[in-house]
């Protein structure tokens, strides 16, 4: 389930996404990949998103790059007369040793943020992959098989699509008990594939009667082969966009559940850090950075996925691309039916 931002996702019944259509087969596939990389480098939103994502991935893979403590290590505060225990367990404000301060149990918050990166990224990537995979199987199967199966799979997809997911997630996770990453991934995947399935179905449907599929059928290929080798590769760019949308969804929904205290409270993850910050009154005691930084990290990681997603939409739909300088100069003419309209109608024609 992805945010309804883009045109192609705003119209699930939509038109074929033509730029996604060609490029089956090895050499052409490689050329397409080359074009993709160039396109990402030329699109500023895509570049920003890619840089953010690479940074977070580096921290997740090699947390040692950023100096940090063991997040379970307990730092004791200075002795004080009014504290319960000596040496005192106190929240401490940010200092040179603890950039974001420590929590009520004396754990360093900055270390939690550094080490939490991995958990969040794993949640995002694995959930994104699995949801897209399930959606692909359901969506493409529905479109390809047609008839009864199309109807049945569609009803399931549509029902799941309109049931509000977050309350459902809350109920399920409550029954399962405090959930670690694995449980969160499973729950988010099982409930979250419907939106993508719908998008992929309409894309696959637009492919159904194209010549190369008819040719494959005439050759007598099995359905499985046709779906996997002929259909799926043509949908790569849409699949990528869906993956990004689903990863964003996983980051936001997973962190939301953890923030409500439904995650495993001992797990080091940004949402859990925020849960502790909130339940230990970080805002009330003036430890603002404890609330700000983990949330900002969630927002930045989410933005990385969202920016890439939006940029892919622009790349695959030329009508949305920012106008080039010479067009913007002629302001009124920028509605430039000749240039923009030309591209768009080419697209619909194909």
């Amino acid at each position, binding site marked *: 389930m992805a945010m309804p931002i883009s045109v192609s996702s*705003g119209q699930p019944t939509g038109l074929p996404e033509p730029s996604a259509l060609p490029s089956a087969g090895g050499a052409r596939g490689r050329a397409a990949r080359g074009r993709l990389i160039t396109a990402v480098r030329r699109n500023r939103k895509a570049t920003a998103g890619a840089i953010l994502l690479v940074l977070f991935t580096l921290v997740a893979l090699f947390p040692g790059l950023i100096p940090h403590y063991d997040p379970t290590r307990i730092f004791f505060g200075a002795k004080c007369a009014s504290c319960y225990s000596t040496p005192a367990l106190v929240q401490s404000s940010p200092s040179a040793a603890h950039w974001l301060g420590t929590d009520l149990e004396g754990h360093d918050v900055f270390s939690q943020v550094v080490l939490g990166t991995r958990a969040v990224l794993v949640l995002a990537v694995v959930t994104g992959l699995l949801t897209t995979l399930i959606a692909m199987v359901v969506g493409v199967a529905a479109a390809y098989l047609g008839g009864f199966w199309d109807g049945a799979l569609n009803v399931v997809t549509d029902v799941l699509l309109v*049931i*509000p997911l977050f309350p459902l997630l809350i109920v399920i996770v409550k029954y399962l008990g405090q959930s670690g990453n694995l449980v969160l991934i499973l729950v988010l995947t099982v409930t979250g594939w419907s939106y993508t399935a719908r998008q992929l179905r309409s894309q696959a449907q637009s492919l159904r009667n194209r010549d190369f599929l008819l040719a494959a059928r005439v050759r007598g290929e099995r359905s499985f082969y046709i779906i996997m080798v002929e259909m799926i590769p043509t949908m790569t760019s849409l699949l990528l966009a869906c993956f990004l949308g689903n990863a964003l969804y996983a980051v936001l929904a997973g962190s939301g559940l953890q923030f409500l205290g439904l995650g495993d409270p001992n797990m080091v993850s940004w949402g859990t850090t925020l849960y502790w910050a909130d339940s230990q009154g970080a*805002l009330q005691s003036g430890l603002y950075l404890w609330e700000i930084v983990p*949330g900002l990290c969630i927002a930045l990681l989410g933005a990385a996925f969202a920016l890439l997603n*939006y940029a892919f939409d622009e790349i695959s739909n030329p009508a949305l691309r920012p106008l080039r300088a010479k067009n913007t100069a002629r302001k009124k003419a920028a509605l430039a*039916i000749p240039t*923009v309209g030309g591209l768009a109608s080419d697209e619909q024609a194909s």
Partner: protein
Amino acid sequence: MRFALRRIGFFALTLWAALSLNFLLPRIMPGNPVESAIASLHVPLTPAEMNAIAAQFGINTHQGLVSEYFTYLGHTLTGNLGVSFVHYPTPVTSYIATGIWWTLGLVGTATILAFVLGTAVGAIAAWRRGSRLDSTLPPLLVFTTAIPYFWVGLMLILVFSSVLGWLPSEGGYTLGATPTFSLSFIGDVLQHAILPALALLITSIGGWVLTMRNTMVGTLTEDYVRMARAKGLPPHRIMMSYAARNAILPNLTGFAMSLGFVVSGAILVEYVFNYPGVGFMLFNAVNGSDYPLMQGLFLLITVAVLLCIVLSDIATAILDPRTRTAA
């Protein structure tokens, strides 16, 4: 007409699916947490209540699964959602009724504002394609759609309550104030609603602007717009009645899709602000292991979302004749 019937059938099916999920979830989960919740309950349950809980959660049942299911459906459809554990002996339905208006007011206002503002801004951005507004807005809004709802709420509290002290940070009205229809009380309620509504607005407006902009960029290239230009119609007329009007339709369909997000946002935002709506209730029910209340709220939220989708369906059908014949 056939279209309407099909939609009604679909909504009935969805409702049934939600009811069945509610029935199945406690039964397929490992262990039975409801049992321990009842054990820790220090209230005497009447046989009738015990019977209702049995039908809802499958505790101490002497019935088969199938007959339990029908008892449960019967109970639910007649509005009997059981008794709240924490607020014993208040029935779940009457407890929920105290929160629903807060949520409807807050979420309704924020959503309508976000829709109207977002659509307008998106239309202007598409119309002035390539202007400064159009080149700075999309990246910024892509970022705001990726910010977690609850964190926006926390930051608003930080700035406007903790640091500046301008607005209250929690509750629907000042503690101790008696809810009346006086001007001062209404002002108080509005003051408490500003920050939560703002949090919802900030995170949800981006989707509207971007969808509207991207759709309208498409409609601007349509032949009927070209025709309108050729006829020499004034630009504002082309923008409003030709391009924007047609671009709004997918946005309305998107409205139904986005409701799920708004609801999830509302739950988190209400929690952050301790706002007395159903979202905060749901959180409290989860926290206090109040299973009947929790499941009742899930059902209620589902029904509310379905109703809103029906409304947006009707709106789309009125505005777009094509949908009446299609599907």
